[in-house]
Structure formats: structure tokens, C-alpha cells
């Protein structure tokens, strides 16, 4: 039996695990005992992450659509077809008629190559990935406030914190190993504040649970800050030395007294005061947030309010403090870092900045486009004629999927590169089979900025190839030759061009459990917490704006508020978890959480079928009656193709970050049949 140390392919925790093989087959996994994130533990998905790898449904050879059906093709044929079609569209309609979706499930090296392919080979900045749907508001909001948008502190610091403030994150279910550190902190006497409309498991351990109405986060946070100012709990020294723009901000705060907060959010003014005092008066206070903050039309506003709260209390730039967005995908941090974004090259070097553009032009020896490209939602809703999609499944993951599917249908050309046939590949003209995380080398960057090596344990099935090799092949056919002997050579190029990753070379990462960026040079040992002494942008800026309601609130026709998210036993569009026996057996059907009072009023019984309708479509799901969800609100997971919650969700976007409002829309509910 062989064992290979690698990184879990599910959430952003980035747990270290060993893949076990016998005779070239995967026979199991085990946790790394000394890994700083998971310390010998894994969640149920991690423990079962071996099973989908060698599933018979894996894509084994390239396929081309002919007369409506996909048929087996050779690599040569398929690559030529993709390169040919993309070149034709580029020549006839211009490079900006093509959109590229990179993948938060792929390695840093692959994301880097993908953005190089889009920019240097195709010649467009139309490259984006699913971070648009999860943390683009963090990137925008935190860039404005701090100058850098990543988790500021480290997971290992959690257990020593005294106060944990968790808003919009179901941590024990969605980032279980971070949840484990949180429980550890609580056991050691830390106080936990949870702000979430749902009674999530973590709330059971909280000193204070603030159950605000969905979409009222800004009002909640501003009223907490109002209390901090009113009661003299501001870290005056910090605000004076390290921030700017406080005066304008403090006049905004005056409008949000706790009673105003109570009126908007439904949280008692008393609880708002208690939370404010608790958070501000302890020095080792860590603040966490996730999708509950970002996936709103006011996503950027929400993030800015979080940043302001942290600065007001002076809880940043030290260990056991900070503003900690929890990233959802194994490498969504890395995919952003690598510049799989329409407006940034790797290391957040702006496309608009002529100096950084010249730097990449010189390195790649190509003229590069100077206008930022289209975001994911914009590509899918207008603009492009052809798309190249790597390891993403927008036909299930994006809001208002009926519309998304129409758009995919109408594209002149769609190529999909993935490990399984997905809902998106139903529209593909060419499907390219890729290698999974167990079949290639490279690096993932976890939520705490830890760049870690993944290691090849088995060969890809039949003709499947690592994504980076496919991109190299295609790029060569489109006139931009890429040649790398291994992923370590791609990392060398990344290190040259990306200041944060200057020292994260593979041979260094091989020694321990990775390095946390910024790691600017070959002797640097990584950075456990950011913004020490000085913010990335110099002075931190108070940038909060006033409360705005969600884009679509319940009304007479659609009286319920629908909020969506993940459950602990499934993952995103289910391509991996739904092919994992144990996990699929736990949650095989889409359950809609509904409050007992609402269920009684509608005459809905436990496990009864219900029809959920929004302005955009309708689905049939099974009711699960629970106190977890407050009255007037229902919760749906988005994992199930047979009951796709995103048929219902609202594609209204945050004006700056272009993130859609997955967390709030209005629906009507009735018994089915």
C-alpha cells in the first residue's frame, strides 16, 4: 500500500490528507495528523473523497457533438476542433466574442495557464470563474477598505481567541475543520457570537445568537458599530494611527441606533448592545463571515461594514484578530490569486495599469488587451458567442438557470473540460476529459492563503489528461506555444510574475505543509496574518454606506423569502458527492426547510412534496419541517439537478462586484399534487 500526501478537493479549509493506493487503484484516504488545519480529523466529505475518483462515469476520452449527440473522438481531432472554432470566431467577431471560465477546483498552475491562454492566445480579458458567485464582494469590499481581499489571519489562531464573531457562515457544516477549531476555542472559554437568520448548529454553542432578517446585515453591523461609538468602546489609538475617513463614517452611524437596528433586522436592541460590548471589549477577537454576507445585491456594502467594525474595534493586524472571509472552494483563493478574473492578472495586478500590462506583455511576448473583460454573469447574459468552460457547471450553479441554459444553447460554440459529464456539457460542442486532483501535481491555496502541493497518486482514466496539459496543447494550436516540463516550471513562471507567490516554489512547498502568502522570495517563510503595522493600501479606510433592502422581497404573490446554500453532505452541483455512495445515501433528495408555523398554516406535512415558485420558474421539493429556519423564510440547498434551487433564484447583481443575490428572493409555496 502506498500513501500520497495531498489536499482535500472539497472546501476552502485545505485539509491535508493521504490518498491510499494498492495496485494503481485508490483504496482510501486518511487525515494528516500534524497538518495545521485538520490535525488528524476530516469531515465526512474528506473521508469519502476517494470514491468519485475512479467512478465509472469519469470522462475517459474526448467527445465531439454530431447531429445532436456526443461521439468519441481522438485528442487530435477534438483539440483541432476547439482551436479551429475559437480561431474562426476570434477572426470573424473579434477576441472579445469569446468567454473563458476557469475553475476554482483546478490548481494554481492551471488557473494561471488558463488566464494566460485567454489573454495571450485568444487575446481577451473575458476570463472569470465561480469566485464571482461567492467572494467577488470580498475582493471588492476589502480592496477598498484594506487594499487586499483575503482572510487576514490563520486557522491555527482560532483556538486561542477570546471572542469569535461569526456572521453568515454555517461553519461547522460548511467549513467543518474551521468549525472544529471554533468549538475548541469555546471549550477553552472563548465567547461566540453567531449572527445568522437560521438556527445553525454553531448557534447552539453561542453566547449570543443574533437572528436578523435575511439581507439586513448592513443595518445589523452599523447598529453594532453605533453602540461601540456611543459607549466609548472604539480603539481610538488604532483609528487615529491607522485609518482614515472616520468622520464621514461616524455621521452615517448616527442614523443606526440600536432601536433602528431592531426595527430593520428584527434583533432585539439589547442583543445588539451585548454583541457590541462583547466583541469590542476583548482584544483577541476574530471576525468570520461567508456567503451570508457576500451573496447579496449589497454584498460589497456588507463586506465594507464588516471591515469597518473590525477597524473600529482595532481588531486587525495582530494574531487572534482579523477579518476572515471563509472561502468555499478548495482553490478559489488560488484561482483569484492567479488572475482568473476579468480585471486582474496574477497577484491582483490590474489590467488597467499600463505598467503591469507591459510586464506581462514582455514576459509572454504578446500584445495584451487593455480593457477589463466581462464577468461570469455578463458573459452568460450577453456579449459572447463562444465559451470555453473548465471545471465549472454554470447550468446548475448560476442564478436563474432557465435563462442560463437558453444562453448556453444559443452560443455558436461551447467547449467543456471536466471530469464528469455535467449539466453544462449537455450544451457542449466538444467535451474534453480532464484529470482529477488525484491524478496530477500542482498547488491549491486554501482560505488562509496557504499554498500547498497536491501529489499525483494514480494515472488518469484512459485518455484523460491534466487540465494544464490540455491548455498547453490548445494554446500551441492557437499560435501561442506553451511548453512546460512539469507543473513546477509553471510555478517558477508564476513566482517571477506574481509578488505574493515569489517564494512558493514546489521544492519549498514539498518540505512541510505549504507556505502562506505573501511569500515574496525564496527565503521567506510565509505570512500567518496580514496588515501588521500597515494596511496593504496604507491607511485603512472607513467605507460603509447605508442599508439597502434586497432586490426582491416577499409580497402578496410570492409571500416567502427563499434563501439558498449548501448542506453538509452534498457539495455544490454534486458532480462528486452525488457519485459517492455514503454521502448520497445521507441526503438523496432536495429538502426544503420550513418553519413549523408556516407548515401548519399551509397544511404541509413532514416529507410532503411541495411546489416552490418564483418569478423565474418553479421546482418540486420535499418539505422538512424544522425550527432551524425562521417563520416566513424557507431554505433550499442548490445541489440537486432534479430540483435545482437556482431555477428560482434572482440574478439581480451587486452593482460593483456583479455577484448575484443567491441569499434572498421571493417565492410562493403550495402542496404538490
Amino acid at each position: 500500500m502506498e500513501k500520497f500526501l495531498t489536499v482535500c478537493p472539497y472546501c476552502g479549509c485545505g485539509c491535508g490528507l493521504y490518498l491510499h493506493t494498492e495496485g494503481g487503484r485508490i483504496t482510501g484516504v486518511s487525515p494528516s495528523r500534524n497538518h495545521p488545519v485538520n490535525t488528524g480529523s476530516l469531515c465526512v466529505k474528506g473521508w469519502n473523497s476517494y470514491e468519485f475518483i475512479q467512478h465509472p462515469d469519469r470522462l475517459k476520452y474526448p467527445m465531439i457533438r454530431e447531429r445532436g449527440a456526443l461521439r468519441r473522438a481522438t485528442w487530435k481531432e477534438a483539440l483541432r476542433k476547439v482551436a479551429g472554432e475559437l480561431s474562426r470566431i476570434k477572426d470573424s467577431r473579434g477576441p472579445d466574442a469569446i468567454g473563458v471560465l476557469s475553475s476554482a477546483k483546478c490548481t494554481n498552475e492551471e488557473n494561471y495557464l488558463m488566464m494566460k491562454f485567454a489573454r495571450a492566445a485568444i487575446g481577451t480579458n473575458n476570463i472569470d470563474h465561480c469566485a464571482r458567485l461567492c467572494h467577488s464582494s470580498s475582493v471588492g469590499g476589502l480592496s477598498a477598505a484594506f487594499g487586499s481581499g483575503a482572510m487576514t489571519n490563520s486557522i491555527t489562531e482560532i483556538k486561542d481567541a477570546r471572542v469569535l464573531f461569526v456572521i453568515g457562515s454555517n461553519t461547522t457544516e460548511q467549513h467543518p475543520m474551521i468549525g472544529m477549531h471554533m468549538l475548541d476555542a469555546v471549550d477553552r472559554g472563548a465567547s461566540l457570537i453567531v449572527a445568522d437568520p437560521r438556527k445553525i448548529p454553531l448557534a447552539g454553542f453561542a453566547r449570543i445568537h443574533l437572528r436578523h432578517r435575511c439581507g439586513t446585515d448592513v443595518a445589523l453591523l452599523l447598529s453594532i458599530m453605533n453602540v461601540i461609538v456611543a459607549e466609548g468602546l472604539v480603539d481610538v489609538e488604532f483609528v487615529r494611527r491607522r485609518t482614515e475617513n472616520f468622520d464621514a463614517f461616524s455621521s452615517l452611524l448616527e442614523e443606526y441606533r440600536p432601536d433602528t437596528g431592531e426595527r430593520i433586522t428584527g434583533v432585539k436592541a439589547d442583543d445588539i448592545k451585548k454583541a457590541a460590548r462583547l466583541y469590542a471589549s476583548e482584544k483577541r477577537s476574530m471576525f468570520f463571515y461567508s456567503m451570508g454576507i457576500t451573496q447579496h445585491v449589497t454584498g460589497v456594502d456588507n463586506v465594507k461594514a464588516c471591515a469597518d467594525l473590525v477597524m473600529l474595534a482595532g481588531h486587525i493586524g495582530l494574531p487572534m484578530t482579523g477579518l476572515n472571509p471563509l472561502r468555499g472552494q478548495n482553490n478559489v483563493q488560488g484561482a483569484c490569486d492567479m488572475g482568473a478574473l476579468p480585471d486582474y492578472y496574477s497577484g491582483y495586478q490590474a489590467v488597467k495599469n499600463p505598467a503591469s500590462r507591459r510586464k506581462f506583455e514582455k514576459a509572454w511576448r504578446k500584445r495584451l488587451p487593455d480593457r477589463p473583460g466581462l464577468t461570469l454573469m455578463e458573459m452568460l447574459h450577453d456579449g459572447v458567442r463562444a465559451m470555453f468552460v473548465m471545471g465549472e457547471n454554470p447550468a446548475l450553479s448560476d442564478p436563474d438557470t432557465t435563462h442560463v441554459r437558453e444562453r448556453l444553447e444559443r452560443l455558436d460554440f461551447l467547449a467543456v473540460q471536466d471530469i464528469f459529464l455535467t449539466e453544462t456539457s449537455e450544451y457542449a460542442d466538444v467535451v474534453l476529459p480532464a484529470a482529477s486532483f488525484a491524478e496530477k501535481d500542482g498547488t491549491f491555496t486554501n482560505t488562509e492563503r496557504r499554498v500547498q502541493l497536491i501529489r499525483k497518486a494514480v494515472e488518469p482514466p484512459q485518455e484523460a489528461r491534466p487540465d494544464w496539459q490540455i491548455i498547453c496543447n490548445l494554446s500551441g494550436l492557437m499560435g501561442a506555444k506553451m511548453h512546460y516540463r512539469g507543473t513546477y516550471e509553471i510555478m517558477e513562471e508564476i513566482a517571477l510574475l506574481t509578488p505574493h507567490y515569489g517564494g512558493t516554489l514546489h521544492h519549498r512547498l514539498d518540505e512541510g505543509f505549504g507556505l502562506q502568502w505573501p511569500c515574496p522570495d525564496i527565503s521567506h517563510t510565509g505570512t500567518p496574518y496580514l496588515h501588521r503595522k500597515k494596511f496593504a493600501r496604507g491607511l485603512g479606510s472607513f467605507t460603509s454606506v447605508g442599508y439597502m433592502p434586497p432586490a426582491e422581497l416577499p409580497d402578496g404573490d410570492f409571500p416567502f423569502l427563499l434563501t439558498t446554500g449548501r448542506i453538509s453532505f452534498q457539495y455544490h452541483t454534486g458532480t462528486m458527492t452525488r457519485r459517492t455512495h455514503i454521502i448520497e445515501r445521507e441526503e438523496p433528495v432536495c429538502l426544503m426547510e420550513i418553519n413549523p408555523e408556516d407548515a401548519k398554516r399551509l397544511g404541509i406535512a413532514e416529507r410532503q412534496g411541495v411546489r416552490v415558485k418564483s418569478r423565474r420558474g418553479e421546482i418540486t421539493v420535499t418539505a422538512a419541517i424544522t425550527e432551524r429556519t425562521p417563520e416566513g423564510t424557507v431554505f433550499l440547498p442548490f445541489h440537486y439537478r432534479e430540483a435545482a434551487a437556482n431555477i428560482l433564484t434572482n440574478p439581480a447583481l451587486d452593482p460593483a462586484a456583479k455577484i448575484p443575490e443567491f441569499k434572498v428572493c421571493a417565492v410562493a409555496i403550495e402542496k404538490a399534487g
Partner: protein
Amino acid sequence: MKKNMPVPIKTEAVKEWVLDKNHLSYWLRQLRKDFELVAPLRERNDIVLKRIDRIHEIALDCPASIPSPKEFLFPQFEPMLTKGTDGISDLRDGSKRVIFGVRSCDVSAVNLLDKFYLSGIADPYYESRRKNTLFISLVCNVPDGTCFCAGLGTGPYLKTGYDIQLYDLGDRYLLQAGSKDAERLVGRHRFLMRKPSKTDHEDQYEAQASSKAMFAERISLEGARQMITDGKVADDFWQDVAERCFECGGCVYECPLCTCFSVIDRKYNAGPADEQVERSRLWDACMFKGFTGMAGGALPAEKRILRTKRWFYHKLIYYPETLGAFGCTGCGRCTITCPGKIDMASVVHRMGNEYSKG
């Protein structure tokens, strides 16, 4: 606690030899000619149990390996058979393996696994691996903070029930063979060994005493069993335990004594001409609500408390009733792996604090 000792396999006097430490790697190299040699290996910052290519990398000063050596007898995912157009072929593994450097607690666990899987109708997959596997265990002198075998009789050294047991006596090992196979194996390299002298046995006694003295934890499973059977432990206690459960299944996966599996069939090579079905089994866990799920969709153990409570009942009450020993060898792996800290040691400890006063 004596009744929890594994059943003696042999009755005659223990066969003993002394092996100079300088000769250990030579001996292992000889063994490797006929066996796949598996041992704890320092792999970057962890210690893992895996096939050894370079003998000098074996890490004998290691804490408990994660997961337990049960994966060599009962792997997490094990192909059982394939059915193709040319009939059924058996995929049973019969590789010859020596597993070197495991702990006494794990050997005690294997003895109980044998009882479970081999008495009555034997499990052929387990049996095939088991009869081709030989354990060379080491008397434990580096217990983890989480270990508590000392009070259970499952370690740190064994009186019976081992294949080959080594005592570290400083510059040499005292080597005991506990089975006929083991004697034959050692016999092949008798020229490396000598008979133990009085000094060796004095040092052995000292090694036993000092390894026992090194344990930090004292956990009384018997005390916990009595508290439960006396009806002292209320459901509120189990409810508190259940609320901390992450439903990861780690306690079951890591436990050297948990034996549950699921069987799945997968169809490879679509197309009627060359269809091949493979049947495999994979680790399953009673911590999952679907584990006892019924065909119609009913979930008798949907409430988490029913599952967490059952796991402890199984280990502490049903195991002694059916197999004559606790379903726990004190290896402490669940303590290491449980994200909610509701492992055996913590829960028993807490139970003692709450119910054993007065």
C-alpha cells in the same frame, strides 16, 4: 479487567530470542524478500503506515499511526469481484505482508476482529488477507497523551495473542514468537539471534514497568459500563454529546475495532457487448442516518442522539456481551480524530465527572 484479555492462542512456553539492533535492518531486508514489508514511516511531518522501500526510514519512535492497521485486513475500499462476459472473477487479495512496528493495542484489536470476522461463517475477504499477514509488534514505550491501553490489558505489552513481539532493551530487542508461523519465520534467521540471558529478562521487566509508568490517561471503561447499566446516565447527557457530533464518521473509520461496511456494484464499460460489473465494499459507519435507512425511505435513527449513543453502547455493552471484551483497546485514535471531542476517552471522562460522585 482480566476477562477482557484476548483469548490465548498457544499454551506452551514462549519462544524467545535476542536480536542485536544492528541486525534489525538486515533481518527486515531478508523478510522483505518474501513479504511486502509495511511499517511506520516518517513522511514529511507525519508518520504513516505504508510499504517500506528504504528500511532506514522506519520510524519506531512514532505515536499511533492514523488510521489503524485494520486497513491492511479490511481496506476502506476493497474490490471483491468482477462479472464480465467471461464469468465471475474473484478479486480477493492474498498478498503476503509483514506489518512491522505496530503497537500492542492494535494487535489486541486484530484478535477481536478475528473473532468477529472468522468465527462462524468466515468472511472470505478478511480471511484471505488475515492468513497472509503477520504482525511484528513493539512493546509501547512512547504512548501518546491520548493512549489508555494500560488500564485495559490491551497494552502496552501482551502476554499472549501476538505473532512476534519486540521489547526494546536499549541496544537489542527481546523477540517473542507467539505463533507457529512466527516461530518458523524467526527460525529462518536463527543465526542472527541468540538465546536470552538473565540480564535480558531483567531488562525486559524494567521495560515493562517503565512503559506502564508512561501513561498519562487512566480511563475506566468498566466504570462507564456500570454507570450505563445502572441506569445512571440520562439521555440529557447523550443529547449534549450528540450536539457536538459533526457526523464525519471519523470515530468509526479510525477505530481498529469497527467493522461495518457497505457493498456497491458499479458498471464499467458501457455498451452491452463488453459490460463489466465490479462489486466492492467500502467502510460504512453507524454515525450516518442512512446506515439504518430502510428501502421505503424511513430513517429509524434520524436523530443524532440515537446514533452517537449507540456507538458507545456498542463499544461498552454489546461488545463485552457478544465478544467478551470491550470494543475499545485504548488506542486513542478517536480522541485524535474527533472534531467535536466526543471520543471514547473524553465521554467516559465526562461521564465519570457527572455521575460517579458520592
